[in-house]
């Protein structure tokens, strides 16, 4: 990938205190939600972050938008260190990075009209007058495929897909450079998912947006990702260009994840050899030593328990094209 980097994560770590000692309520354990994640996102492209529940992908999203503070590491947005910004600077930085949530209800106040909700970031940041705000909101509504005439309607009068359009419009209100989309289509019906994915692609092309797209399975992101990162227990285990990751998968976890996706074409179903992982994801409070995936890995050997694999170029790939963290990559 060439191009200018718009967002960069450097060794991001987020540990949440959890549990307590017996007599005093002092935290004794740390939930290692995100544990040393680095990547860079080129302007106008999409990075997909994929993983199952508990892998830390949502925490990562919230760290990038600095909705929560990292334990260590930094986020660089267009050359500025977001993590070091003062609260005043942060307000300005917030314009440049916005979040779209899985449940659009989370950012739509049920007592406010949809137009008011979409305009909220403008009012907070005071970038426009009241009249200007209204005009901008109507423009945004048109942009995401909502009828601007419906400005005064309330969220419950809209369908799930329309609400997600409103959530996207709200994220666009301040003309951000980067949008973190946290499972934006997971709660929607299949026929509506496609509409929203297409919309996001159109907006990216029109507005030159960059996306961090968080998803729980690999099929959703196949269409929109320019780069795919697979996370497991707080770490990126594989990252690379989608063609390379999908077709020449290097990490055993990614392979399992890919093979687990049910395929709607009966002709294809038999073509794929399914790898069914045994057991569940271990607790992020007490992750396995060495390679975190080793407890479920069909390839695990003694070395995996003692030595943590680093994220390095997969064998036979161009530098930076496709990285994997595994002692025995394919």
């Amino acid at each position, binding site marked *: 990938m060439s191009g200018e980097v718009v967002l960069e994560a450097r060794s991001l770590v987020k540990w949440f205190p959890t549990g307590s000692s*017996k*007599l*005093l*309520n002092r935290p004794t354990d740390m939930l290692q939600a995100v544990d040393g994640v680095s990547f860079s996102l080129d302007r106008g492209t999409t990075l997909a972050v994929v993983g199952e529940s508990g892998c830390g992908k949502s925490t990562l999203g919230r760290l990038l938008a600095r909705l929560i503070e990292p334990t260590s590491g930094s986020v660089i947005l267009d050359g500025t260190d977001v993590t070091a910004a003062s609260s005043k600077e942060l307000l300005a930085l917030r314009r440049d990075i916005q979040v779209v949530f899985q449940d659009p209800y989370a950012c739509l106040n049920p007592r406010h009209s949809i137009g008011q909700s979409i305009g909220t970031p403008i009012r907070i940041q005071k970038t426009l007058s009241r009249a200007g705000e209204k005009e901008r909101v109507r423009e945004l509504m048109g942009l995401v495929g909502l009828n601007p005439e419906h400005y005064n309607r309330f969220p419950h009068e809209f369908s799930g897909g329309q609400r997600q359009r409103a959530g996207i419009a709200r994220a666009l209100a301040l003309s951000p450079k980067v949008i973190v989309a946290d499972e934006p289509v997971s709660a929607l019906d299949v026929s509506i998912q496609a509409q929203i994915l297409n919309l996001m692609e159109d907006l990216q092309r029109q507005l030159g947006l960059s996306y961090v797209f968080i998803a729980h399975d690999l099929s959703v992101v196949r269409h929109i990702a320019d780069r795919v990162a697979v996370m497991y227990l707080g770490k990126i285990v594989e990252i690379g260009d989608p063609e390379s990751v999908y077709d020449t998968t290097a990490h055993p976890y990614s392979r399992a994840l890919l093979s687990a996706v049910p395929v709607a074409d009966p002709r294809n179903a038999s073509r794929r050899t399914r790898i069914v992982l045994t057991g569940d994801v271990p607790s992020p409070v007490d992750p396995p030593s060495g390679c975190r995936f080793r407890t479920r890995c069909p390839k695990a050997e003694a070395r995996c328990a003692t030595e943590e694999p680093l994220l390095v170029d997969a064998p036979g790939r161009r530098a930076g094209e496709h990285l994997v963290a595994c002692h025995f990559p394919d």
Partner: protein
Amino acid sequence: MIFFVLRRSFFAIVLLLIVSAFTFVIFSALPSDPAALTCGKNCRPEVIESNRERLGYDRPLVEQYGAYMKGIFAGRTYGEEGSSIHCSAPSLGYSYDRHECVTTLIASTLPVTASIALGAFVLWMVIGVGLGTLAALKRGRWQDRVATAFSVIGVSLPTFFLGLIFIMVFVIWTGLLPFPRYTGLTENPVEWFMSLLLPWFVLAIISAATYVRMTRNGILEVMNEEFVRLGIAKGLPRRRLIVTYVLRAALVPIVTIAGLDFAFLLGGALVTESIFNLPGLGKLTLAAVINSDLPILVATTMVSAVFIVVANTVVDILYGYLDPRVRVK
């Protein structure tokens, strides 16, 4: 589990210390001079000063608090030899207004309040949970409407009003009951029961109103839970489903609130005790407020606080027992 109980108890004690200190400071900060209140209007300044010294109000606040706390465990003697007054442990102070140790006063009023609280509590749980369950199971039918009406009326009726109506109807008009005159349980159980019947019902009806609503809503909420649907899909008989699935789940939060309400009631039912002329903690407190009897006020506040903190702790421990999800591993 044992650690959980220990930890909770430890925190309860710390909390009580804080509450007692806080109460003490607040009452000391009041503009009224406690020493001046010890004798009548035409008091000579020398008497006030000598009383101040006898009661220890001339000492710094911290020292006063220390003496107070020490009194609780070791008893306390006011004044010099000869004219001294001794209040044995646990001493909660001395009421100059009544010329008695506060502990003695509380000890004589507490059984009354406990009798009222216990009976009312049993009644209101039976009425509240019973009616609430009935309303939920017969949702939308006349039973539900009756229960809801009861709940609305109970919530909106002031205690004194209901109390007076009860006295009018049961004592004055029909003469079914004698006017309540409190008799100790050990003295005459039948009279004890009769004298408390009206206050029990008054308190129970008013408190039960909230419980009807809580129980009804709790049950209806649980009935929508997926696990109840699974219970039905298993083929469980309705009665068993209601008892082991629905009530079991719906009553957990109610038990919690009931424990706190009961503790609150133990601190004295001010209005009810006054209407029915019952010599309980509430009436003692009310009289103390009117007479600015600070030692009694400090003591009753602390006694109430003890009940609430203890109830809180018990409820927390009970909650862990009732709901496996909050049980500590």
